């Protein structure tokens, strides 16, 4: 086996050094009735070439070239520069562990420090963590953080936060005894905060912008309403690229910002791995969950970086830790910083504008074709459209043509039957949009 370097001779001489005469005897401390008698029932090994064929065949049962999915809803198709994929393949980054030994890990540490910096700047916050699993767990951890900071036991979430994020929060909250309530939405597709004043003991209130309908929320006003209750304002996002164009949540009063960074150079990969992001003000720095990299100096006064504030973490604080997270999504954070560095301020703005403008083009074409756009408020790169009754048949026809025309909202919002969330990023050409409109109008 090519990954196992031992020759028969090596094995014999090592066994001799250990003082046993057979590999099986190395396991003598395992009681006999614990030991497995039969072989594992797994498929026979494949050569590298057989594996390539096998995996290519499986990948052949996936959407191929020419496939056009106008689907966002938490994961976004964006172009990824080859330079980012190439740099991310550097095995010094890929094959290293969590940087517990900083002298040998300055590459990862400086890169994560740079990621934290750019992430904080993108969101308009002072401090960002090294990464979390995904946007949904980042939200759950942010809400738990609000509970820790305020000592209160209830949180409220906008019903326009990604439904799968809200489900994740319910999972995290179920055994804790804390209450997670949902806030309704208004006919204009934004969050209805009017019930906040009737809720007591609120630790945090979370609002997503752009929200699940793609609508840009008035975060400034939301923050003011939320702060009146004494709760922390948690601003959530699923499309990080939006902040290349939109005002950052930090500038609008958010206490904690959390969400998904997959758009920043990370492939879709059927939903994972992504990049959970959490940012906050310095006042809450010591309450943050997860890893943090900090700047310091070495014995000779040279600049260097270390994992820091470890006293918040599980391996030191045990059951009193701010989170149980250990392995996070470090390499995805590296992808994000490489991507943000490649775009720069100029590129981020241009690309975000292009996403917005393309989505607006699509929206106007659909309107022209006679379809209703139920929520009139401004959107970024996705929006809701109402197709006529019986659209399900049209959709099936389109699927056969390798086009996914949007994400059906009815499973999460039963009142929105025939409503679809349509996403347009820079990967969709005008021709592809025109073709979709022709098909749905046909």
């Amino acid at each position, binding site marked *: 086996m090519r990954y196992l370097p031992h020759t028969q001779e090596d*094995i014999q001489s090592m066994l001799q050094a250990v003082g046993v005469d057979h590999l099986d005897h190395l396991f003598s401390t*395992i009681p006999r009735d614990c030991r497995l008698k039969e072989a594992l029932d797994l498929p026979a090994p494949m050569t590298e070439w057989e594996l390539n064929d096998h995996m290519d065949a499986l990948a052949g049962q996936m959407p191929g070239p020419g496939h056009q999915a106008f689907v966002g809803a938490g994961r976004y198709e964006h172009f990824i520069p080859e330079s980012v994929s190439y740099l991310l393949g550097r095995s010094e980054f890929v094959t290293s562990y969590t940087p517990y030994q900083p*002298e040998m890990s300055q590459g990862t540490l400086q890169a994560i420090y740079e990621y934290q910096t750019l992430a904080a700047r*993108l969101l308009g916050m002072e401090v960002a963590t090294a990464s979390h699993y995904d946007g949904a767990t980042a939200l759950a951890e942010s809400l738990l953080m609000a509970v820790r900071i305020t000592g209160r036991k209830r949180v409220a979430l906008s019903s326009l936060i990604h439904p799968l994020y809200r489900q994740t929060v319910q999972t*995290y909250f179920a055994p804790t005894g804390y209450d997670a309530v949902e806030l309704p939405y208004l006919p204009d597709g934004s969050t209805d905060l009017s019930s906040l004043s009737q809720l007591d003991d609120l630790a945090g209130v979370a609002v997503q912008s752009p929200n699940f309908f793609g609508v840009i929320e008035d975060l400034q006003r939301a923050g003011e309403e939320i702060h009146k209750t004494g709760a922390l304002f948690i601003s959530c996002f699923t499309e990080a690229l939006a902040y290349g164009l939109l005002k950052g949540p930090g500038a609008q009063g958010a206490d904690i910002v959390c969400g998904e960074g997959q758009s920043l150079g990370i492939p879709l990969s059927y939903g994972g791995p992504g990049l959970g992001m959490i940012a906050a003000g310095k006042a809450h720095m010591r309450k943050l969950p997860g890893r943090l990299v900090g700047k*310091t100096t070495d014995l000779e006064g040279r600049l260097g970086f270390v994992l820091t504030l470890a006293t918040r973490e599980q391996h030191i604080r045990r059951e009193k830790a701010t989170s149980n997270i250990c392995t996070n999504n470090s390499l995805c954070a590296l992808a994000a910083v490489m991507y943000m560095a490649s775009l720069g301020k100029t590129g981020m703005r241009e690309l975000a504008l292009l996403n917005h403008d393309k989505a607006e083009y699509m929206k106007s074409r659909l309107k022209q074709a006679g379809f209703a756009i139920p929520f009139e408020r401004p959107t970024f790169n996705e929006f809701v459209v109402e197709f006529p009754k019986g659209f399900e048949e049209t959709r099936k026809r389109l699927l056969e043509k390798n086009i996914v025309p949007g994400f059906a909202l009815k499973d999460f919002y039963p009142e929105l039957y025939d409503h679809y969330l349509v996403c347009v990023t820079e990967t969709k050409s005008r021709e592809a949009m025109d073709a979709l409109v022709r098909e749905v109008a046909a």
Partner: protein
Amino acid sequence: MNDSLGTTGLILNEPLLWEKGKAGRCGFSLPKRDVDPSPLSRELVGDGPDFPDLSEVDVVRHYTRLSQWNFGVDTGMYPLGSCTMKYNPKTNERQASIPGFSGAHPLIPESLCQGVLQVMAELEVHLAEITGMDAATLQPAAGAHGELTGMLLIHAWHQKKGAQRTRIIVPDTAHGTNPASVALCGYRPVPVASDDQGILSAEAVAGVMDEDTAGIMITNPNTLGLFEENILEIARIVHAKGGLVYCDGANMNAVMGMVKMGKIGVDVMHLNLHKTFSTPHGGGGPGSGPVCVKKELEPFLPVPRIVKQEGRYALDHDRPDSIGRLQAFYGNVGVMLKAYSYIRTMGPEGLKKVSQLAVLNANYIKERLKDTLHLPYDRPCMHECVFSDKFQAPHHVTTLDMAKRLMDYGFHPPTVYFPLVVAGAIMMEPTETESKEDLDSYIAALKAIAEEARTDPDLLHHAPRKCKVRRLDETAAARKPCLAG
């Protein structure tokens, strides 16, 4: 040790990202604008993020230089205990990046995604077979996330029975994340000490197990690298009082094809695909922490479940007893593809060989070093062994000093000061992918360092000397944190 691996060579200084570049540069090929601009209310628009503008060359040089300050498994031996830093096969990377997989959106219809669903369904079956369990979920994103999932399953199981409990037994040789995972579920961890053999005695468990205790969270093999020999009896005690047995399977690399945890009393366990199943650790993730369970816990597994209906794979969300969702989608699929590729490459005999050689390598190191370093538990180990700095203490040399000096010799240090049951612990896990020559040169380096500790301890106190930086001031970093530039 005249020809130590560790040497010095030219690596380049590199400033912080934002100290480079010039406004107006861009390292990204902007797609052509084929639509007209569409105005957006000025109130909504920000100034644009304060990022530096860099060319593609700037970015490539920057991160290439940074990468050269790092040490990975591809650079050399990385014997971090309990981390299983084995070689990460390159073919796995190829498979995970096939566009059909890497470009698949998670919310497109299942009928279009049969390939990836087949991989995931088969991986669940393979992991259940390797652990001797009945079902698996791939959703948890890392080991600690798997622990949380396991605790939620135990919590839901007791809840369904109508009698919630308040405590979970956590031995002192368990992984560091365990108590925090227990606490997240509202349980109180009850510590239990291991015995003078470094393992858990049935009596110790019997002494604390009661009908208010939801179960036990046991790491097997434990963090001393020892197999929990009393596991059958411990499981019997826990089950008799209505509790469940959770196994932290981070150390599964020791016993593949040798022991099935499901056959020795374990009800629920997690695996770390980024340890046992060869996926790279990425400098701190992404990992993947699948959870395997016995039949009685299957109804509680996270949604969606992958099911096969009339020969087609589908996602089933309709599980009324499910604990819910652990993250937005189905887990770290990119990592699963690599682990699946590894299992298909190794086959049943290959995986068993992996564990045999991992255990051989650890025992070889233990035997060859036990005269050099103090070995608190002198008995056959599994995949890792734990020493201490007791022999070096008279020379005022600590575990940390030896760890830092190892860097100068060209090795990544072992895990240090863990497990907590050994003062000054040095925990070594060579893994099966290190050759005898590499082990010999690692052993020689440690012997040379032990000699230096006797003759020239300052060499160790001042180590490392050959890295990009010398020892860093961690106290200052924590006292006045600077977390962004």
